[in-house]
């Protein structure tokens, strides 16, 4: 990136809705309009991009595909404000723009040989998806892989098709939940932190990664501690309002850390003494 403020154009290969409703989530599979961009593009799970449309604006989103999935990037975007509303109007064949990859990544190299459990809620699964994909694509490098995920209802589940595939596979244990009972729901009913205690993953040689709504994170962190996970075994991603994404514009800091540069991936060890981290 010569000029880190100039975005690349990407073309939408496929677009589909993950969830319905007022706060619906749409996934975009995109490729760079200029093929040459791929030559210098390197991202790792956890990294983000500033996604936007000139004339509308830009917002920061995690890249929800793993670099092991070649030839495209994925973004799963919940409708929230001006930029996300404009993005949701786009279909396959349309374009938008992005700057990236930005921020740090999950330390997947350090995690080699360890058991990994991901604990996600709602759209919080978007940054966890590339972790799961990466581990499944480098299966021999890691120990057990366990996925815990919940949303309000089965309709609110992101990545349903992939979860079915994971559930049937033998390389990842899949534990799904919904908040309120539904007919024919074969999985757990209750909140994610409760499901976590049911599954009760062992902290032995393990890493827990959690992303989701703040209230879920709060109880997941408490429960992980009860299960014996140490703060340096627990990872999460933070989000804040961002403008530049490259540590200049000032607004995304939690304490002395810039979410855009020092994050979005943090260990709980880094965050536990920063009161603003979960503000």
């Amino acid at each position, binding site marked *: *990136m*010569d*000029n*880190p*403020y*100039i*975005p690349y*154009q990407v073309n939408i290969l496929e677009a589909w809705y993950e969830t319905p409703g007022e706060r619906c989530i749409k996934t975009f599979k995109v490729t760079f*309009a200029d093929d040459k961009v791929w030559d210098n593009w390197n991202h790792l799970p956890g990294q983000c991009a500033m996604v936007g449309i*000139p*004339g*509308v*604006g*830009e*917002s920061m989103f995690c890249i929800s595909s793993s670099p092991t999935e070649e030839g495209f990037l994925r973004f799963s975007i919940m409708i*929230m*404000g001006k930029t*996300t509303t404009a993005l949701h109007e786009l279909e396959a064949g349309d*374009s938008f*723009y992005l700057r990236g990859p930005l921020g740090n990544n999950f330390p997947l190299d350090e995690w080699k040989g360890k058991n990994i459990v991901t604990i996600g809620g709602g759209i919080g699964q978007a940054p966890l998806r590339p972790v799961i994909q990466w581990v499944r694509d480098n299966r021999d490098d890691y120990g057990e892989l366990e996925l815990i995920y919940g949303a309000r209802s089965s309709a609110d589940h992101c990545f349903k098709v992939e979860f079915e595939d994971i559930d049937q596979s033998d390389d990842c244990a899949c534990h799904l939940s919904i908040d309120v009972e539904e007919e024919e729901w074969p999985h757990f009913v209750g909140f994610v932190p409760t499901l976590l205690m049911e599954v009760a993953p062992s902290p032995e040689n393990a890493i827990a990664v959690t992303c989701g709504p703040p209230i879920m994170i709060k109880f997941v962190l408490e429960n992980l501690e009860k299960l014996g996970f140490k703060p340096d075994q627990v990872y999460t991603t933070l*989000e*804040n*309002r961002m*403008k*530049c994404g*490259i*540590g*200049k*514009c*000032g*607004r995304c*800091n*939690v*304490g*002395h850390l810039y979410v855009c*540069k020092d994050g979005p991936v943090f260990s709980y060890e880094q965050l536990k003494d920063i*009161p*603003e981290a979960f*503000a």
Partner: protein
Amino acid sequence: MAVKKLSKEKIAEVLQELSKFRLIAPALSDDVVIFKEIQDPEEAYLDYGNSTVPPKKVVFPQTETLFRFQIGNPELTEKDVGEEGTTVIFGLRPCDARAMAIVDKLFRWDYDDPYYLKRRELVTLVGMACVEPPSINCFCTSVGGSPFGKEGLDLLLTDMGDEHYLVQALTEKGEKLQETLAPHLGDAGDKDESKVEELAKEAEGKILRSINPEGIPEKLPGLWDHGLWKEASASCLGCGICTFLCPTCHCFDIQDEVEESGEGRRARMWDSCMFSEYTVHASGHNPRPTRKERTRNRINHKYSYYPDRFDVIACVGCGRCINLCPVNIDILDILEQVVEA
């Protein structure tokens, strides 16, 4: 580096010579001193303390185009920075030059900011030493600066109290400019430099306000829940003047603007951590919901986070935030409470 002398009578000649570049100098605008581009030496107003608005806008404009676009056309046109060419800021105070040196660290950190750095490259800073403190709220000596400070400056002029300014070149850029001005300059006397040192010492003694910042950066994180933040921000209006007029404040927003024709630009513009919108999420959640959190962030950013990352306090003690706060919030009073807490 060379030391020369400039007769006060020749100041207009020098400004005339400098006006072959883009020349920014203190000037009056509605009775307020600002730094602005001048064509005519007569426009310069040299009987000033310091400008109300710092000259940071020369390198970090209040609004700046990042690129242009046309709706419907996928091409983005990058802004050609630096078309204004070589620029001289004449007469800025040492604190404001030092502020640029401090902010440089941020704009060079990891990602080079091409807009800021291009402007910085094009600008030569000609400082005017503060023989008298420009304001009763100056405290540069408390935060690593001095009324005769050289950090960030290319040339330093000192009013020798007689009919001359001493002109000290401090950098290569400064030497180059000094050469350009050579026909208007005379040789400095043997004792001039030692006289400058005396004047500097005198000037430091005239600074009225002070704080001992030692230990503040380390102490601040522990005062997160202290009552002082609520008290310090109780009268704050959230107007943001303390940040807009701060020479080290560098926060910006990015917005897209589109005209009816479909022509548009993405631009960045000064923003302020004292505004509620600054941190509000798309969901409506605001991690800094009240002025208490915003004031705490402003002080922490300057006196703890910035030193933590860049080894320097992001405050040069110019006193503008104290002088111009409409409700008399005083950063030194807040820091005093931090020290005593």
